[in-house]
């Protein structure tokens, strides 16, 4: 965890500073560790946990690739294979991709907004503990031979009580509950933070693009996650208390499950990759040392992305048979997403075109992203077309497509973002040399793995098959893909090596090693618990750059601005922050954030007992609610007069 200070810059003898230090200090020992509510610590816990999940998901991916390396392989049986590909998909979607983006947002958004913590720090801690609970629950299942085996989408009736007996599917569905509650907590507090706690004068048209992307993502979470709440509840209640939501014999409908699932599932993909677009914007701005071209267009297309994402879920269900008019509508809406994504790509290209590009590792990953994501986007257009989709749906073509979009569109920017913000998180630079090697391994390995899958799909190889016959002619390309997967694995290991090596031996970074533009670079590296000694004032869209008012910022030499405007008059003897108005971010009132507390942890434990227990015995819904309610009473109980927070 990034708590050890290596930054030499800030003189601590100032009395006010030591008061701030004391007020924002976290407790010691394991109790203190469990009570932490600082957003960096929580964000970092999310990121680290998510990377552990990435590692596990990656190992599962390798197992899948080994099994498919040649025809009639018996490395994994059908049962084990189904478990592993399901766990792989579930882990990557629910336990890695979404949480890691949330973690980055929790870490960065308060700093970028120029405030000291998220709006509801305890809710934040609670969200993390539930997420951790979900991870542990799923992997407890995996290691006790109860890994889900019905695919990450869990279509009934296959996932119903009769065709997947045992507790495998229930564990999966309840794991979803854990992560959805956690994601909803994060979305709520991030929206409140972005709306109400931005630095003074950071009006809507000055919000950094990354923060915009998180705002859009959080709103999407709020409106998409309820659908998966319903879908997973359908499954759970059908399986544990014999309701009939998806049982056609009693009037239920398995297709309704698909509608509800994809009403969540498609926005889910954008929930993952919209923050990545924010990473790219931040990296492009900082490393081409130039204002982004077409900021309003970028913001509007982010918002449009968010809306359109809710209107195209049916393209996952073309093969179920739809009326013609429905097909035409969903084809059009699915293609529309290419327009909004295209605008952003053009804006980045224009920015890079006219910028002073510094070809760092972070920018390498952005270029890698552009190559892969553009290709993935174009195959997305193929999938939007109903006749083509009917051929390639549920084949390896689709596998190739969404790995291009998700690895290319989210993982590459994420790696870039980590190279970009690592100095802020740890106070040290990552090795650029190793970083570039790391990039090339990932890039080449990735294309080697997933490009052949397009061809396999067109040649009729369906998804989720545990093996195939030699007469199908799929051996060569599958072997190639498996080799590629191992090259990716090497790339991943190099990244970890770089992270751990640089943690100790990296060059000391200083506050703003990239001469970047946004407010997080005004904080110390690594940041103090309170982020800023004096809250900053956002004097422009790029507050750390010279000539702030002459937007669009010109090619003038990017340089950090030493004499920024700051806020004074906040009390330092308690955790006070500033609440500003929604549109113009004018200071409105002061607001005291709650301190560290063990109650989020205790509540999360109680809620987890309810969640996990109810999988095995429905009565835990009642008893879990009661103990959770008691824990919440403890959380809210007015000990001192100033303690109330959701």
């Amino acid at each position, binding site marked *: 965890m990034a708590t050890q200070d290596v930054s030499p810059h800030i003189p601590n003898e100032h009395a006010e500073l030591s008061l701030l230090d004391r007020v924002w200090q976290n407790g010691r020992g394991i109790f203190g560790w469990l009570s932490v509510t600082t957003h960096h610590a929580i964000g970092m816990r999310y990121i680290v946990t998510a990377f552990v999940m990435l590692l596990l998901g990656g190992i599962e991916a390798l197992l899948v690739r080994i099994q498919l390396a040649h025809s009639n392989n018996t490395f994994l049986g059908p049962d084990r294979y189904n478990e592993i590909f399901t766990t792989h998909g579930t882990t990557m979607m629910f336990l890695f991709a979404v949480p890691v983006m949330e973690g980055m947002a929790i870490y960065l958004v308060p700093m970028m907004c120029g405030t000291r913590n998220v709006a509801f720090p305890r809710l934040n801690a609670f969200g993390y503990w539930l997420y951790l609970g979900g991870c542990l629950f799923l992997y407890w299942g995996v290691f006790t031979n109860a890994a889900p085996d019905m695919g990450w989408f869990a279509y009934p009736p296959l996932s119903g009580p009769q065709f997947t007996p045992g507790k495998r599917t229930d564990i999966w569905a309840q794991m979803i509950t854990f992560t959805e509650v956690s994601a909803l907590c994060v979305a709520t507090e991030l929206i409140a933070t972005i709306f109400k706690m931005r630095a003074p004068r950071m009006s809507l048209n000055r919000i950094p693009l990354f923060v915009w992307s998180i705002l859009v993502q959080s709103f999407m979470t709020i409106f998409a996650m309820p659908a998966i709440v319903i879908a997973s509840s359908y499954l759970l209640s059908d399986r544990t208390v014999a309701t009939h939501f998806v049982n056609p014999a009693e009037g239920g409908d398995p297709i309704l499950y698909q509608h509800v699932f994809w009403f969540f599932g498609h926005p889910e993909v954008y929930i993952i990759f919209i923050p990545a677009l924010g990473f790219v914007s931040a990296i492009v701005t900082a490393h081409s040392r130039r204002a982004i071209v077409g900021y309003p267009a970028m913001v509007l297309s982010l918002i449009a992305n968010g809306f359109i994402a809710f209107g195209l879920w049916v393209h996952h269900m073309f093969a179920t048979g739809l009326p013609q008019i429905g097909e035409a509508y969903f084809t059009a809406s699915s293609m529309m997403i290419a327009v909004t994504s295209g605008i952003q790509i053009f804006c980045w290209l224009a920015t890079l075109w006219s910028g002073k590009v510094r070809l760092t590792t972070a920018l390498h990953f952005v*270029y890698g992203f552009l190559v892969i994501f553009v290709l993935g986007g174009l195959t997305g257009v*193929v999938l939007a*077309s109903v006749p083509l989709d009917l051929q390639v749906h549920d084949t390896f073509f689709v596998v190739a497509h969404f790995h291009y979009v998700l690895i290319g569109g989210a993982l590459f920017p994420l790696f870039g973002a980590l190279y970009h913000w690592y100095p802020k998180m740890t106070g040290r630079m990552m090795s650029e040399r190793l970083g570039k090697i790391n990039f090339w391994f990932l890039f080449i390995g990735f294309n080697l793995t997933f490009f052949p899958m397009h061809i396999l799909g067109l040649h009729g190889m369906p998804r989720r098959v545990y093996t195939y016959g030699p007469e199908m002619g799929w051996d060569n390309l599958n072997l190639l893909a498996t080799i590629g997967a191992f090259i990716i694995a090497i790339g991943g290991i190099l990244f970890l090596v770089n992270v751990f090596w640089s943690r100790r031996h990296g060059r000391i970074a200083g506050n703003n090693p990239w001469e970047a533009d946004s407010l997080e670079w005004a904080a110390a590296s690594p940041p103090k618990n309170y982020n800023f000694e004096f809250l900053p004032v956002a004097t422009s869209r790029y507050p750390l750059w010279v000539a702030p008012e002459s937007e669009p910022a010109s090619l003038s030499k990017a340089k950090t601005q030493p004499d920024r405007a700051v806020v004074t008059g906040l009390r330092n003897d308690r955790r006070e922050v500033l609440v500003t108005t929604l549109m113009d971010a004018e200071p409105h009132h002061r607001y005291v954030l709650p301190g560290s507390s063990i109650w989020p942890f205790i509540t999360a434990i109680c809620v987890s007992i309810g969640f996990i227990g109810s999988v095995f015995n429905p009565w835990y819904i009642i008893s879990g609610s009661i103990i959770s309610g008691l824990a919440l009473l403890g959380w809210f109980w007015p000990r001192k007069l100033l303690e109330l927070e959701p």
Partner: protein
Amino acid sequence: MKRLWFALAALAYSAAAQQQSALNPAGPQSGRIAGLWWFFFYLLGAIFIIVMLIMLRTLMRGHRNAEENQPLENHERAQTRETRLRSIVTVSSVVTVVLLFILLVASISIGKANADLGASGKPMIIQVIGNQWWWQFSYLNDDPSQVLTTANEIHIPIGKTVLIQGQSNDVIHSFWVPNLHGKRDLIPSRVTTEYIRADRPGIYRGQCAEFCGLQHAHMAFYIVAEPEDKFKAWMQAQLQPAVAPATPALAQGQQNFLNYACVYCHQIRGTTASGTNGPDLTHFGSRRTIAAGTLPNTPGNLGGWIVNPQSIKPGNHMATIAVKPDDLQPMIQYLESLK
């Protein structure tokens, strides 16, 4: 790098078996779809190459910008440049919209043409019922004596439109013959339909495309497209009950089949075996594969399958019956004789 990919693509194209490929169309629908694919491929490929070229150019330009230690530009020039860049972005976006519109129209018209295939004339109706993990096919007919039920392999006449009427007995499956048309899900409680037509003779492989449990990988079937007269002959042969055993050995085989538990699941018309849980075996010997496309139909494979089906297709619903070695051989001979 690119060249390598093209080489690989060419390699893959030649290597892949063409009997299950969307790029080797054998019917009007798959032909249209393949045409649409190549249209998409070239247009989108061109877009990809253009974007990549621009990207590489930014790499060079941006680098040069950084190295030239340019003086501060005046505000006006910067403003002009900014306006120009924005208009380029706008124009590119408009071009994107136009290209997508073309693709949209192409896609919708092909979709409509494919859906309208069965609009004229009375199609032949084949009912498909998905089972874990095999296919039951029934040729529907108003005359009950002409209704034929078979499994995992069907014949269709060339040039005749066939209506596939899909249902499922357990979980969701998906009917897919890439050489003829796209997929159609088979959903319990619903009837889904799709028209197919083959225009050139051949044997086309289809496979379940919706994950359906343990043996999703081994759920294939074959469609044999042949001229009308050959089809008619096949149909007439299939409508007959099973041939009576011609030799004492075959009679013994039949007896063995009826004595073991086979009869609880399998039907052989013309005998007392009338189970409906598994595939109909009346004309088993005429089929190309056993176990839904898992193995070629040879006596050796059949023996292995009967003795231990769970080692070939683990988790499938065929019982592992302890057939005595002496009983096995006649049974195999009998089944193979059911042409």
